[in-house]
Each structure stands twice: as structure tokens, then as C-alpha cells.
């Protein structure tokens, strides 16, 4: 409730009183006790404990375990881990492979953001025009969401195949083109292929988020803009997009989260290759851990990813606070 200066006394009075009087001491909010008639006090704990324990055990504990273990190292594969302090981190920061992967992650995240947001806005605006009329369009839009990363990778591998892929056939059909790019084998373009695949799998969510935002925009703003002579692109640029700010920011945060921490598409499509051209940080972590079997060193990379991701999440919470937006 918003506190007004008109009558603060009668509103705030019952609470301190309640603390003092004996019959109200134990469970302050009376309203909630109504639902607990005949229910043991232990019930809410029994109800929520299994979930809390499972989540704490499989999401909370592993993070702490990972942090601790990143300070140890095994001198050889079978040996017991030894305390090395921050050596895993200093080694990580001085290794070329790490900076290479950080660089690739940057390209991956920014590339996916640019392509994803451009397409997301474009398609959401297009769908908004016909909203409610063509139901099957919705089903098609969500299509990629139900496909696993591996299946998407196989499909794009076929689409982008340089010998028989439909894309290159279309490109080679053009009279001035000799042969299309080798999408997956050429280090210069492999990242483009990965970005396309990643954006394809993530786009349904961006479209739906922005479309949801478009539906909430008050029509009077748009009509007012129309009266003022703003049409088409001008209206979109100066009225609609600013009003969509929360949804756009949330989409940006979500896309960055998905690309920063995403491993499936890269692993299944290129495996980090060719010549490490698509070796993102997630891929680097996987390689160090499960190919080189240097788990402790890999945990340093994992911690780094977690910190970057935590910063993103803070940004997300900040956006939520700023716009009072919950979704």
C-alpha cells in the first residue's frame, strides 16, 4: 500500500500493538493463519523442504564446490588434488587459449544480439499487424523452441552444407558467384554459421517477448503520434520502441545469457572448430575439463563465466526494478 500523509496513525497502530499483546505475539499476520486452521505448523516446511533441498543440493552446492575446487589442482591425473591458491586463475589469465575464447565469446554474444534483436523486432512488428488473425503463424513462430540444440545443429549442417546445401545452391545460382562459402569448414565464416543457428533457436522467445510488449502499449500513445503526423518508421522509432524499452532490455539480457552460457549449439555444430574459430568460453571449459581432463583448471573458467553471468543477472534485476516489470 502506498503510505499517504493523511492518516498514518490508524493504519500503523495495529501492528506495534499486535507485537505487544499476548494473543498476537506468535503469528503476526492474522489473515494468513486462516488458511492454517487444522494444519500443523510443520506443514509449510514439509511441503517446501524437498524442493529447497534438491535445488540447494544440485544448484547451490555445486557452485560452492566448484569455487573451492578451483583453488586446487591435481599434479597428475590420478593424484589427489593439492592446494594451489589462485594459481588456476593466474594461469588462466595468462593463457592465450583463454583470451582467444573470451574474444570468440564476445563476437558470438554481440553477433547474436545484433542479429537476434534485429530479426526479433522485425518479426514481432510484422506479427503485431495480423495478431489474432493467423493462428498458424504463432505455431510456426514457436517451432524452433521445441527443437533440441543437437537437432538444430543437424538441420543447419544440412542447410549450410557446401556441397548440396540449399543455401549454397541458391547462392551459386546467381550468375556472378562461382562457389558459395564453405560455411562450416572455413574459419572466417564458421562463426557466422554458429550465430545463425543460435539465433534461430532463441528467436521465438524474443519475438514473443516483444510481441507481448507491443500488446500492452496503450493505443492512445500511438493514436496521438498519428495525429501529430508520425507514421511508419518515425512512429516506431520515437514512440513504439521507447515504450518497448523493458521488453527490449529483457530480450537483450536473455539473449546474452543464452549465448554466454550456451554450449549445445556450438558443440553439436562445430565442436569449437575449424581451427578453434568458434571456441567460445563454454566450449573452452568443456574442452579443458572433458578432453584434457583438467577439471580444476576448467572450474576457474566456469567461475569466470558464472561471474559474468551474475553481472548480467544484476542488470536484469535492475531493469525489473526500474520499470517495475515482472514477467
Amino acid at each position, binding site marked *: 500500500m502506498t503510505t499517504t500523509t493523511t492518516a498514518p496513525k490508524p493504519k500503523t497502530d495495529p501492528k506495534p500493538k499486535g507485537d505487544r499483546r499476548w494473543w498476537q505475539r506468535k503469528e503476526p499476520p492474522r489473515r494468513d493463519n486462516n488458511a492454517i486452521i487444522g494444519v500443523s505448523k510443520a506443514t509449510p516446511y514439509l*511441503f517446501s523442504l524437498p*524442493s529447497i533441498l534438491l535445488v540447494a543440493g*544440485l*544448484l547451490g552446492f555445486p557452485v560452492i564446490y566448484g569455487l573451492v575446487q578451483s583453488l586446487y589442482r591435481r599434479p597428475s591425473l590420478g593424484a589427489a588434488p593439492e592446494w594451489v591458491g589462485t594459481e588456476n586463475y593466474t594461469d588462466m589469465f595468462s593463457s592465450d587459449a583463454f583470451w582467444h575464447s573470451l574474444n570468440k565469446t564476445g563476437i558470438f554474444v554481440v553477433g547474436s544480439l545484433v542479429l537476434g534483436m534485429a530479426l526479433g523486432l522485425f518479426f514481432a512488428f510484422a506479427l503485431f499487424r495480423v495478431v*489474432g488473425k493467423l493462428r498458424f503463424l504463432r505455431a510456426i513462430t514457436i517451432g524452433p523452441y521445441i527443437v*533440441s540444440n543437437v537437432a538444430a545443429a543437424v538441420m543447419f549442417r544440412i542447410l549450410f552444407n557446401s556441397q548440396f546445401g540449399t543455401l549454397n545452391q541458391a547462392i551459386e545460382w546467381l550468375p556472378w558467384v562461382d562457389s558459395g562459402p564453405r560455411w562450416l569448414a572455413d574459419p572466417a565464416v564458421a562463426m557466422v554459421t554458429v550465430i545463425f543457428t543460435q539465433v534461430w533457436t532463441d528467436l521465438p522467445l524474443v519475438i514473443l517477448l516483444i510481441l507481448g510488449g507491443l*500488446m500492452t502499449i496503450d493505443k492512445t500513445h500511438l493514436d496521438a503520434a498519428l495525429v501529430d503526423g508520425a507514421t511508419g518508421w518515425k512512429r516506431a522509432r520515437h514512440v513504439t520502441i521507447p515504450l518497448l524499452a523493458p521488453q527490449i532490455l529483457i530480450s537483450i539480457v536473455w539473449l546474452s545469457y543464452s549465448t554466454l552460457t550456451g554450449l549445445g549449439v556450438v558443440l553439436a555444430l562445430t565442436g569449437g572448430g575449424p581451427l578453434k574459430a568458434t571456441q567460445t568460453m563454454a566450449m573452452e571449459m568443456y574442452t579443458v575439463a572433458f578432453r584434457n581432463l583438467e*577439471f580444476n583448471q576448467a572450474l576457474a573458467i566456469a567461475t569466470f563465466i558464472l561471474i559474468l553471468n551474475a553481472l548480467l543477472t544484476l542488470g536484469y534485476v535492475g531493469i525489473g526494478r526500474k520499470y517495475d516489470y515482472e514477467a
Partner: protein
Amino acid sequence: MTDTLPQDEFLTESLAEEALKASEGAPREPRRTAGRRGKGIIRNILIAIPLIALVIWTVTPFFVTLSISLKDRAEVFSDPSLIPANPSLDAYAQVLASETFTTSFWNSVIVGVGTTLLTIVLAVPAAYAFARFRFRGRHLLLLFTLLPRLVPSIGVMIPIYRLAVTTQMLDKRITLIIVYTAMLLPLGVWLLVGFFQAIPREIEEAANVDGASLWGRLRYIVGPLAAPAMITVGVLAFREAWNEFTLVLVLVNSPGKRTLPFELYKMQGVEGIADYPIEAAFTVLTIIPFILVYTWVEKYVVAGIISGSGK
């Protein structure tokens, strides 16, 4: 709007409602103003072009894969057309007859159904407790909702693997079910809390006066009212288990325990010369079961995607 479903009322204040309404065909003001009617055809074309682009963008990968799956190995290279000259279902027959597919398919079904059930069984009481009771630890809900964002699966991949090694839980389907449930629980609980809070407390109080026990209220009042949310959570859990790839990759080794995405991934790597029709047919067959589930409960999936993005 005439056929608005009752559950829509309970999605108040969430973005899901708007999108749902939108897709259900909420009435919108006619967009064409009087002065513009003459440009109708051009306008329609201008509206259609981006929509066609959207369909092409989304459908092409599916279509190309389907096309390849209907060719044979030689035709892949010799017949470049999208619509095969002599389509055959040989690739599908081969995949369906192979043991790798049937085994991994049933593994996926077991893990998928197991994850769905366990998620609902754990999430419903937890969400009810968070929504209805004041108790110590209630503030954990906020942490709950932020955890999946703070801890992506890539961050816990190695620790969970080490944990499974030390507890000898590697290579077991039950491990996958438990891990996927933990991944999905925060979202599931958060979704359900919103629903439970939207159910008027008075209904339960009235039932309580009439002598309904807590179990009775859950069974006959809260449960049916929250059924749409439970379906949404179930679909999300099933999707996660059906499609998850990076964790199953490290938690499972032996061929008998792999799920479909893992087996599909193995297929690309192991076979020297890729057999594209087989790969394509395998891909199509992994997608089809979920499409069946999906068309059945499409509306809930939309709600689920949107709420899933928030957290």
C-alpha cells in the same frame, strides 16, 4: 475473445496473459483508417512480405531436413532439388529398426515422463507453501526465482559430474531425472506460486468450514483450478528432459542409457562418412513426438515460454 478460457483469469498481471489473449484473437481496433483504404492491396503486400520472411526463416531448416530424409545417399548429391524425384521412406525404416534409436527413444521417454512427474510432485506442494503460508524460509522464494539465472547448467556441469562420480550415480537414468528436475523446479515453483496466489483464499476457507481437510482442499479445489499451470510446468519439464544435451553428455556413457539428443550427436561424430538421409530421418523422428505433445497443449507452451524467459 468469445471462447476465452477460464484459466486466463488466473494469469493476471503476468505478461503471459497478454500474449495468450493476443494469440487467442483478442479484438483489436481496425487498423485501417478511412483515408488509407485505397492503398489496401499495397498495404496487404507490405504486411505479407515480413510474414513470409518469418515463415521462410523458421521453416527452411525443417523443410530441408525433411527433404534430405526422403532421399537416398546418392540422391543427396545427385538430385539437388528440394522436392525429391523419387521420395522413399527407407531412411525412416532403417532408423526405426536400429537399436540405437529405439533404446534412446525409450530412455528419452522414461527420463521425460520421470522429470515431468517428479517436477510436478515436488513443485506443487512447495509452491502451495510459498503462496499460502507465512513461515521461516519464505524469503527463499526470491532466491529460488533467481537461481536458474545465476546458475546456468554450464556453471554446474563439472561439479555435478564430479558429484555423480563420487556418489556412483553416473550412467543412470534416475540421475538424469533428478538433475533435470532440480533445473526445472525453480521455474515451476515460481509459475505455480503466481497461480496459487490468484486462487481466492475465501474459496479454501469456505471449504475448510465445510470440513475439508488440507488434502481435500488441495485435491478438489486448488488442484483443478491450478491444472493449467501444472500442465505448463509439465510441458516445460518434458521439453527440458527431451531436449537437454550438455548434461546428459557428461552424466551418461553407455549406449544403453543415452537419450535422443546424445545419440544424434554421437551419430554425427562416429560414422566416418556422414549418412545424411539417416541423420535427417533421425532428427525428424526426435522432433515428431514433441510436436505431438506440443500441438496438444500449445497454449500452455506459449505461456510457459514467456514466463520461462522472465526467470
